[in-house]
């Protein structure tokens, strides 16, 4: 896996110190579900937080009186019913960190175009909804640019950059900046499921792409 397909150091640090936006934290947690290497890195960063905490956190400490007795133990919280009732199609392709952002517990990929389905998530990035997309084998995302960052993670299957041949497989992250123009095609014989956040509208470069963007609502 190329390093470009992983979170950046800034992204992982912001996840660890709790400063990143919810949409990014959720998508990074999906990547961590799928990438043991990055999990090890996050563990190191959290251990570092603990060591720093131990070294420095009491420099500005105030006096806090200990209560006279410990609080009673709390029984374990029941699991969320929404997580338990999601269809297998979702639970086996979409990591759990995204489940709580799926509004409908009986959600399924809704038809957008032939070969393309989606599930909107209860998450927004820059005021725009984050969505799960399912691309059927052979589906082509027409050449397009962006008016803001596009941050995508492949959750199952694979996508291929049509011009460079770069493959994004399970767990890989794709970041496209406003100046980037690209086109993607589903790679292999399996459908590809990806979570995509677009912080600006797409700028399709083809007539077909423009028509698709109207239907998709981008």
């Amino acid at each position, binding site marked *: 896996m190329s390093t470009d397909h992983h979170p950046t150091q800034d992204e992982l640090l912001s996840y660890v110190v709790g400063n990143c936006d919810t949409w990014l934290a959720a998508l990074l947690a999906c990547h961590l579900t799928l990438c*043991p290497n990055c999990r090890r890195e996050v563990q190191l960063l959290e251990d570092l937080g603990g060591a720093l905490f131990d070294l420095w956190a009491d420099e500005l400490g105030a006096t806090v009186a200990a209560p006279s007795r410990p609080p009673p133990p709390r029984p374990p919280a029941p699991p969320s019913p929404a997580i338990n009732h999601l269809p297998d199609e979702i639970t086996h392709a979409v990591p759990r960190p995204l489940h709580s952002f799926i509004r409908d517990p009986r959600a399924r990929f809704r038809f957008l175009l032939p070969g393309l389905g989606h599930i909107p998530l209860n998450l927004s990035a820059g005021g725009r909804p984050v969505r799960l997309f399912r691309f059927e084998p052979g589906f082509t995302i027409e050449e397009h640019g962006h008016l803001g960052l596009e941050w995508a993670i492949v959750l199952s299957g694979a996508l291929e950059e049509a011009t460079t041949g770069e493959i994004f497989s399970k767990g890989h992250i794709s970041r496209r900046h406003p100046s980037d123009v690209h086109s993607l095609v589903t790679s292999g014989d399996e459908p590809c499921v990806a979570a995509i956040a677009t912080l600006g509208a797409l700028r399709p470069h083809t007539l077909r792409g423009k028509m698709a963007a109207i239907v998709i609502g981008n």
Partner: protein
Amino acid sequence: MDSSSSSPPDPPPTDNAARTESDYGEIFSRYARRVTGYLVRKGLSPAAAEALTEVAMLTAWQRFTRKGRPPPLFDTWIFCVARDQRAVLLHRTQRPEPDPDDPCWVADDSKPSSAPRPLETTHMRLRNALDSLPEVQRETLKHLYFQGQSTTAIARALGSREDEVREHIRDALHTLRIRSREDNGKP
């Protein structure tokens, strides 16, 4: 920094006796002040930080008693609880976490390069590695973790360029990564 913060922390109580009131008091007195300090550095007022400290300690205690054993690195755990409680206070969703029981979970098949080390050793190694970092790198990490500042804000606070701040972070993490994997006293 007071003298207690530079010495290695005693491991938290591990047996059933830990659930007694005196042990709770011990854990509270050891960590509450640090949690408050951490939250003040993260921008909360002292009053809000104290209130949130109580919530964080309550959460930590309830998880502690539910599991019946302390987490591997207690400092790391307390740090994570305090960070998450702050996020909740700020009306942000608690940080989504990967779940090892997830059907999508990809297990770590890599073999460790050496026998597993005691977790206290890992903690001490990180502490020692932190001490060995150049002052500017330690100061950068402090701003990053304790004030939650972006690289832009850190650059402004330290009067340096943003790429220099990134470089300090990268170099510090590189050193810590190497030092945390070293064996005791041996490279």
